[in-house]
């Protein structure tokens, strides 16, 4: 399979597409294609826990690649959320309906959807137990439960506060993203002090907290209230982004735009009534008042995964419960018939929808190869991508891998560290379409 070794080839293909003038969606397409033509016959029972970006894409791919398999999706959420759109809702350029659809609409024919959460995963007994107590035995399990937003990890914070007291958080869903825009917009009319930051630990789309600070700065400028305002970004460690070259670039841009940066500041408490945020720093706790604050909660694996034997038992990801999988194959290290795809995988980086589209073909190939009695050489290289919006109308197309290398889809054409119109146009017109095509296994 090409993903194992085909990076260069893939990029060439994508460039060729752009050359034809057809490729607006191409950056969002990396690694997508139709599954191998010949179907493998099997009676295997495959359970996919979680029907978000990763779970639905897996179901589509497996349904196309296998004949006779009993594929079951388990997810208690009837709504599907196109989460990369949250930032656009939070910026006021798209309504909440832009990101909402129904999970059922993407479930491929022949796949069963059980509309319940997985309550328990028992890899010793090869069984998933649903919230109502239904037992689902499996031969293969794909865990795609995403991650949990732990707002309670910040003292005084609650999802219900989003939109009140100058508090925003685009992470918590479509309505929360809209409420964030309204709070931010009211703030932008007057100006004042705006606080941003990110939590320690792994998080999905680590670019989103940075983007939102850029967006707010832009809106303040457009409304003529920038001069009387102060924007401060709080980094949880000593850098702005995990990839050094990107971090430096953002530092330069923040400097140009007058966005202040405080390193090693972790948001630990909010007092909505007084509008005071408390940050833990190496020098002790620091208080800071706000007119607007964008809260990004700590994230971790969902309880059903955390409470199972599947998480890492030591190291960086043990405490937050991410699955102990091989970073190239995404196969569980201790339970070879279990895979993790998407945000719940205990691998460095890779917590974006763009990563999902590279991971899904790899896991599909390994699973299908197992069933067909062959070996798969497919490997995921950590590809992660994020159109880092720097203002409404411009973005940087940031793409990188496990080794902090930039892996631009269009080398020499779309400069990864330049603020350009074209990545913004892609984000606005093509990314949702490529995402949905990915869910359907068509791209």
């Amino acid at each position, binding site marked *: 399979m090409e993903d194992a070794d085909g990076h260069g080839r893939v990029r060439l293909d994508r460039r060729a597409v752009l050359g034809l003038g057809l490729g607006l969606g191409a950056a969002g*397409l990396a690694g997508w294609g139709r599954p*191998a033509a010949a179907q493998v016959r099997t009676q295997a029972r495959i359970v996919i826990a979680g029907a978000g970006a990763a779970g639905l894409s897996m179901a589509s791919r497996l349904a196309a690649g296998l004949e006779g398999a009993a594929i079951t999706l388990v997810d208690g959420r009837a709504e599907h959320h196109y989460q990369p759109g949250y930032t656009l809702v939070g910026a006021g350029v798209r309504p909440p309906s832009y990101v909402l659809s129904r999970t059922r609409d993407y479930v491929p024919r022949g796949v069963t959807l059980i509309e319940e959460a997985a309550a328990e995963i028992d890899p010793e007994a090869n069984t998933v137990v649903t919230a109502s107590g239904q037992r689902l035995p499996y031969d293969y399990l794909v865990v795609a439960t995403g991650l949990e937003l732990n707002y309670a990890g910040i003292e005084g914070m609650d999802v219900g506060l989003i939109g009140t007291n100058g508090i925003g958080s685009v992470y918590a869903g479509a309505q929360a993203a809209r409420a964030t825009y309204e709070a931010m917009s009211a703030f932008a009319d007057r100006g004042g002090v705006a606080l941003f930051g990110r939590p320690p630990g792994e998080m999905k789309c680590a670019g989103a907290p940075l983007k939102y600070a850029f967006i707010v700065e832009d809106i303040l400028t457009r409304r003529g209230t920038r001069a009387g305002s102060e924007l401060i970004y709080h980094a949880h460690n000593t850098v702005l982004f995990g990839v050094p070259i990107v971090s430096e670039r953002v530092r330069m841009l923040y400097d140009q735009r007058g966005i202040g940066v405080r390193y090693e500041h972790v948001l630990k408490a909010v007092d909505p009534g007084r509008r005071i945020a408390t940050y833990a720093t190496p020098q002790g706790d620091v208080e800071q008042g706000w007119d607007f604050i964008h809260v990004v909660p700590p994230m971790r694996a969902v309880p059903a995964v955390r409470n199972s034997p599947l998480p890492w038992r030591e190291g960086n990801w043990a405490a937050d419960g991410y699955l102990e999988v091989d970073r190239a194959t995404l196969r569980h290290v201790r339970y070879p018939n279990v895979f993790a795809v998407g945000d719940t995988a205990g691998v460095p980086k890779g917590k974006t929808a763009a990563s999902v589209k590279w991971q899904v073909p790899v896991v599909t190939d390994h699973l299908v190869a197992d069933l067909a009695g062959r070996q798969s050489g497919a490997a995921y290289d950590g590809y992660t991508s994020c159109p880092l919006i720097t*203002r409404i109308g411009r973005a940087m197309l940031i793409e990188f891998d496990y080794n902090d290398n930039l892996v631009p889809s269009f080398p020499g054409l779309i400069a990864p560290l330049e*603020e350009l119109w*074209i990545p913004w146009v892609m984000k*606005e017109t093509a990314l949702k*379409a490529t995402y949905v095509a990915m869910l359907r296994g068509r*791209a």
Partner: protein
Amino acid sequence: MSEITPGVLWAVFWEMLGLWLPVLIAAAVLVTVLFVLVLRRDGLRFRRLVGSQVAGLAGGLAALVFMWAVTNSSPRDVGGPVDVLLLLGIYLLGWGGGTMLFYALAGLAARRRARQPAARPVPRQAA
């Protein structure tokens, strides 16, 4: 598996445009067919072509304005050479499409005028 096949592009454009995709393709085909028909019937009329090209300039502008409107952006967002290329590409598409449309329409209008029992003869060269 990682290639961008025509099928993949079709899937993405289908998700992007929905039913507008066949409508747009039909419109493009219609304009092209009309253009070719008028061209075959009348040959290349120089004045008509120049007139259509001039009118097509507005088509290019309309394409750009449309693009900026649907993407919540504006001319000030053009940031680098590749953006200028995209800008030119969109403009050329609008201009080329507009030229063909106006040329075809002018040809059809000339034909209709020619068919009508005219009070005075239509000059052969009229666009």
